[in-house]
C-alpha cells in the first residue's frame, strides 16, 4: 500500500494524521510545489506584519514528517493524474505509482481581468512566497492598493498598515467582508479600519494598473485614479483543480467528493479548498475554503484511505477573524434572502457591537457576533446539530447565553457528549 498526497497544508496534514491513526506502517509520499515544511496559510498576514517568525508559522513541528514516516517531495509540482494506471506525473517527468491518492492542492488566487497585471509589484496574497516578495518592496511611507475587501484583502491591509504603508482598498461590492457580514456589520468594521487610516473605494473595481514596467497606480471604473507603489490582488480564491483537469476525476467548481471525501474515482480522494463537499446548511455540495473544513475533510479522507470507514457529515461557512482588536465570529447564512427566515438582532454601532442570529423553522442557520464573541461555539453547535430552539429562542441574544438556558434534558445530553463528540 502506497499513499500519495498532493498538497502540504491543513487538508494534507489532516490526511497524514488520519492515515496514521489506522495504519502506522505503509509509506506515505507527500508532494508540494512549495519548498517549505507545512506552515499555517492564515498566518501569512501575521508574518508580513512581523508578528510571527517563519519558525512560529509551522503548522506542525519539525519532526512531523519523520514521526509519521512521510517521504516529502517539496518544491516539486504534480501536473497530471492517470487514474487507470494509478500514476501521478511530476513536472520533472518523474512518475509515482499510488494505491490511494489524496488531492489537496488548495486554492489559487482568482484574478479578474484588468489591464496591467503583468507589471512588476503586482502581487497576490495566499502563500508565504507572496509575503516574501511583498516584503522586499514595502517600507514606511509606501502606498499600496489592495483589490478586494474580503478576508484576505483586509488581513493584507492590516499587515501592510502596521508597517507604515498607506493602504487603499478597492471593492466591487457595497461593503467590506461581503461573504461573512451584512451591511450593518460591515459598516462597523469599515469605520473601525478607517479610524486606523485605511481608505476604501466601494462599489467599484480596477480598470487598469497604470505605470511603466512597474506598477505606479490604478485607475478605477468610477473614474478615480490612485497612485501606488504596489498592488495586491485579493479578490478571492478558487479551487486549484489543475492537476485533475485532464483526468477522469469529476470536477465541478471544485473536485466533487462524497461523504467519505472520495472523488468520482475509487481510491482517489480530495479535501480542502480544492474540493467541493457537502454543505450542511445549503444541503448541497459547495466549495468551502476554510481551514477547519480542510482539516476535517483531510482527516476523513485519510481514515478512509487507510481502510477505516469514516464519514464527514459536512461543513458550512464559518470564520473567526479580527482587525485591530475588533474580533468577529460568523457562520452560515448571514444575510438571508427569500422567505421563511426569522432574524434576531442586537445592534449598538457606537460600541461596535452587533449580534445577529438567523433562524429558519426554529433552527439556527447562521449568525454574526461582532465584538462580543465569547461562547460563539455554542451557537455553531446548534447549527451543526440542527437543534430546534423554539423553547429558548428569546434567550439566544442574551450576553450570558449558555447551557443554563437550554432545557434540562438537552443540556444534560450535550454535556455528557464530550465522550463521543465527533468532527463537529
Amino acid at each position, binding site marked *: 500500500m502506497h499513499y500519495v498526497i498532493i498538497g502540504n497544508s491543513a487538508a494534507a*496534514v*489532516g490526511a497524514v494524521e488520519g492515515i496514521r491513526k489506522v495504519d502506522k506502517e505503509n509509506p506515505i509520499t507527500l508532494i508540494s510545489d512549495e519548498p517549505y515544511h507545512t506552515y*499555517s496559510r*492564515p*498566518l501569512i498576514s*501575521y508574518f508580513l506584519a512581523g*508578528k*510571527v517568525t517563519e519558525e*512560529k*508559522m*509551522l*503548522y*506542525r513541528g519539525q519532526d512531523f514528517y519523520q514521526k509519521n514516516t512521510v517521504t516529502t517531495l517539496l518544491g516539486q509540482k504534480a501536473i497530471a493524474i492517470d487514474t487507470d494506471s494509478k500514476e501521478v506525473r511530476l513536472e520533472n517527468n518523474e512518475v509515482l505509482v499510488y494505491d490511494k491518492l489524496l488531492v489537496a492542492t488548495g486554492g489559487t488566487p482568482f484574478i479578474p481581468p484588468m489591464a496591467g497585471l503583468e507589471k512588476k509589484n503586482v502581487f497576490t496574497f495566499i502563500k508565504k512566497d507572496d509575503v516574501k516578495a511583498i516584503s522586499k518592496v514595502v517600507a514606511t511611507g509606501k502606498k499600496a492598493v489592495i483589490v478586494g475587501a474580503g478576508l484576505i484583502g483586509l488581513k493584507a491591509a492590516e499587515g501592510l498598515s502596521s508597517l507604515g504603508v498607506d493602504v487603499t482598498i478597492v471593492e466591487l461590492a457595497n461593503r467590506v467582508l461581503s461573504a461573512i457580514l451584512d451591511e450593518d456589520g460591515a459598516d462597523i468594521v469599515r469605520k473601525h479600519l478607517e479610524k486606523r487610516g485605511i481608505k476604501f473605494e466601494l462599489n467599484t473595481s480596477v480598470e487598469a494598473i497604470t505605470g511603466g514596467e512597474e506598477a505606479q497606480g490604478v485607475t478605477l471604473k468610477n473614474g478615480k485614479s490612485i497612485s501606488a507603489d504596489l498592488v495586491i490582488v485579493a479578490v478571492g480564491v478558487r479551487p486549484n483543480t489543475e492537476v485533475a483537469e485532464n483526468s477522469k476525476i469529476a470536477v465541478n467548481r471544485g473536485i466533487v467528493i462524497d461523504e467519505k471525501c472520495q472523488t468520482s474515482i475509487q481510491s482517489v480522494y480530495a479535501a480542502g479548498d480544492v474540493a467541493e463537499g457537502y454543505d450542511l446548511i445549503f444541503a448541497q455540495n459547495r466549495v468551502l475554503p476554510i*481551514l*477547519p473544513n480542510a*482539516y*476535517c475533510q483531510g*482527516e476523513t479522507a485519510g481514515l478512509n484511505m487507510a481502510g477505516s470507514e469514516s464519514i464527514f457529515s459536512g461543513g458550512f461557512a*464559518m*470564520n*473567526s*477573524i*479580527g482587525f485591530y482588536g475588533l*474580533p468577529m*465570529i460568523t*457562520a452560515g447564512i448571514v444575510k438571508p434572502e427569500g422567505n421563511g427566515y426569522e432574524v434576531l438582532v442586537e445592534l449598538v454601532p457606537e460600541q461596535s457591537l452587533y449580534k445577529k442570529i438567523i433562524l429558519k423553522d426554529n433552527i439556527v442557520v447562521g449568525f454574526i457576533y461582532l465584538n462580543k*464573541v*465569547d*461562547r*460563539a*461555539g*455554542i451557537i*455553531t*453547535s446548534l447549527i*451543526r446539530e440542527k437543534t430546534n430552539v423554539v423553547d429558548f429562542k428569546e434567550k439566544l441574544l442574551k450576553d*450570558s447565553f*449558555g*447551557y*443554563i*438556558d437550554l432545557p*434540562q434534558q438537552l443540556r444534560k445530553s*450535550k*454535556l*455528557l*457528549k*464530550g*465522550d*463521543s*463528540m*465527533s*468532527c*463537529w
Partner: protein
Amino acid sequence: MKRVYAREEYCVGCKLCEIYCIAAHSKYKNDLVKTFKKEANPPISRILVEESRPVSFALQCRHCEDAPCTKACIVGAMQKNPKTGVVTNEEERCVGCWTCVLVCPFGAITRDERGHKVASKCDLCSDNSQMPACVEHCPNRALVYSEYVSNNGTK
C-alpha cells in the same frame, strides 16, 4: 479518560471552583492569598459557573474524544495528548484568532487578553496533582472526577 462531571443537583453556585482554578494557574500555584493579594494580573478562570437560581453548575472543557478545537486551530497549537486524552493549548504558538471559540460546542474556551492574546482552557490541572483543583475544593461534591458518571452520581 477521566473527566470532570458536574452534578447540578448538588451545585450551590458558590463559585469556589472558579477561585481555586485561578489559584491553580497563578504563578503562586494553589496559594489563594498570594494569588489574589500579590499577583498583579491573576489568571482568568478556566471553569465557568452558569447560574439561574436555583439551578447552577460548573462547566469546563470536556476534552472531547474527537476535539473540534484541535482540528480547527489554524496554527496547530491546540492538541489532544494521545496518551492522556487531555486537550491543551500551546500558548506560545497561539495567536489568539479565536477559531477554537468558534467551534467549541461547550463555549469552554475563553479569551485571555492580559498579555499576548491566547486561548485559555481547562487542562485538568495536568501538571499539578492527582485531582483537578475545582473538584478537590468543591464543598458539596457537585464536581466529580471520574471515567463516567451515571444519573445518581456513581461510577
